[in-house]
């Protein structure tokens, strides 16, 4: 019983059995989180540094809570208030922190591949908490966990990823995770936000949101990431909301109940309207809750690799 990898850099590197193991372990941690005392002593000999080179609320708090509930020691690092702003390189920053005997690194960076690069240079286990437009593995794992929790096994389920597929690391990780678990995936959005050749990952493409919603059991609505678009890819947010926004009218027009997900933060009124985001079909807050359990599972399972790294 062990993961096949030393780091959690992306879902791409995981075997289906790894994903199953993480989800199964997460279910037990979810039970821990329902107890009066939501803390176990498992990682009391482990120190974890949270290296965040990019802003984050949910993921960072979620990781920090996961670490604390496993009794690990945590150190937080934000690039804006550190020596990175004096020009220190990534490797130097990480090596300096690790020389203070840190066992694991949770890392978010705006450059795709940054954690993979760091993994070649340091000894600690690395968990990717989002790298550029590449992957966000723990988000995909918690999405899969939340889908399973709501509608059962992923096998054969139909999941639509809607919105900015091009700039979304959540989308890419979800595609890998869902297809490895036997779900069917369709991406849907304006043609300018869908990468060319995305079909080669084994997913379908739809440009009509109604068609996608009719087809799917679960709609994972992604955030429009204006901060990553360096040239205009659609004419206005209002137009995007008109053609690709998920709202009550469009959901009522397709005669079936579907589960609505969103990785947060929501642009209310753009990709998702408030009445849908707050409806009973939305499992957005369950996703956040499950995030802690899934991250505890990832930390726990990678801590088992600690001795092999020295």
């Amino acid at each position, binding site marked *: 019983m062990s993961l096949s990898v030393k780091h959690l850099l992306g879902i791409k590197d995981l075997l289906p059995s790894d994903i199953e193991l993480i989800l199964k372990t997460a279910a037990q941690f979810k039970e821990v989180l329902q107890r*009066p005392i939501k803390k176990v002593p498992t990682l009391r000999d482990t120190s974890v540094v949270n290296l965040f080179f990019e802003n984050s609320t949910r993921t960072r708090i979620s990781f920090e809570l996961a670490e604390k509930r496993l009794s690990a020691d945590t150190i937080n690092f934000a690039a804006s208030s550190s020596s990175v702003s004096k020009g220190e390189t990534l490797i130097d920053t990480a090596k300096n922190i690790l020389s203070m005997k840190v066992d694991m690194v949770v890392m978010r960076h705006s450059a795709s591949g940054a954690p993979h690069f760091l993994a070649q240079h340091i000894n600690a286990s690395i968990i990717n908490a989002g790298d550029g437009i590449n992957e966000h593995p723990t988000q995909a794992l918690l999405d899969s966990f939340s889908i399973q929790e709501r509608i059962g096994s992923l096998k054969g389920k139909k999941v639509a990823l809607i919105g900015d597929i091009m700039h979304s690391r959540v989308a890419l990780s979800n595609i890998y995770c869902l297809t490895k678990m036997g779900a069917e995936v369709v991406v849907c959005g304006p043609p300018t936000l869908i990468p060319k050749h995305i079909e080669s990952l084994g997913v379908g493409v739809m440009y009509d949101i109604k068609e996608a919603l009719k087809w799917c059991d679960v709609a994972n609505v992604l955030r429009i990431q204006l901060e990553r678009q360096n040239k205009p890819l659609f004419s206005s947010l209002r137009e995007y909301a008109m053609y690709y926004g998920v709202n009550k009218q469009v959901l009522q027009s397709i005669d079936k109940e579907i589960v609505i997900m969103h990785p947060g933060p929501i642009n209310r009124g753009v990709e998702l309207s408030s009445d849908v985001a707050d409806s009973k079909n939305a499992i957005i807050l369950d996703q956040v809750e499950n995030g802690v359990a899934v991250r505890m599972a990832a930390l726990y399972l990678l801590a088992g690799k600690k001795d092999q790294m020295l």
Partner: protein
Amino acid sequence: MKPLFIQKELDITLTRLAYQLVENHMDFENTVIIGLQPRGIFLSDRIHQKVQSFLPKTKIAYGKLDITFYRDDFNEKGQLLQVSETQMDFNIEGKHVILVDDVLYTGRSIRSGLDALLDYGRPAHVELLVLIDRRFNREVPIQPDYVGMAVDVIDNQKVKVLWKERDGKDEVILL
């Protein structure tokens, strides 16, 4: 290889243990049975069934507790321990708790079990029931309250408990 228990003897012993529990806890109104995952639950299933059959009018609270996250050796052999399911749909606050495990050896699992248990609340009283007590191998000061059989064996001998549900037959053997 020497058998310590075979099917019929085992059943007699389990019946005796169940009667001892009823003798001490009478109506089981404020008492709960908790089996330790993964190996203790086969024993706790049987004990629960028997006690329940003696007291058909009360519904006896019964749970299963996983102790993996509390172990001091969860990562010692380079392989993580398999996590099992915890099922406890009752409150243990102020209750009499009977912890159940199959073999009491070093006492370290029970130590983890106590830690895990206390995270669910503050029981009034905790007792320990084991099928086999290896008396000479304790590493921490933990003693059972109910014992199926006490055996005196040397360190490198192994006690193996087989259950019909998992292994096809009920038997306890000394290897």
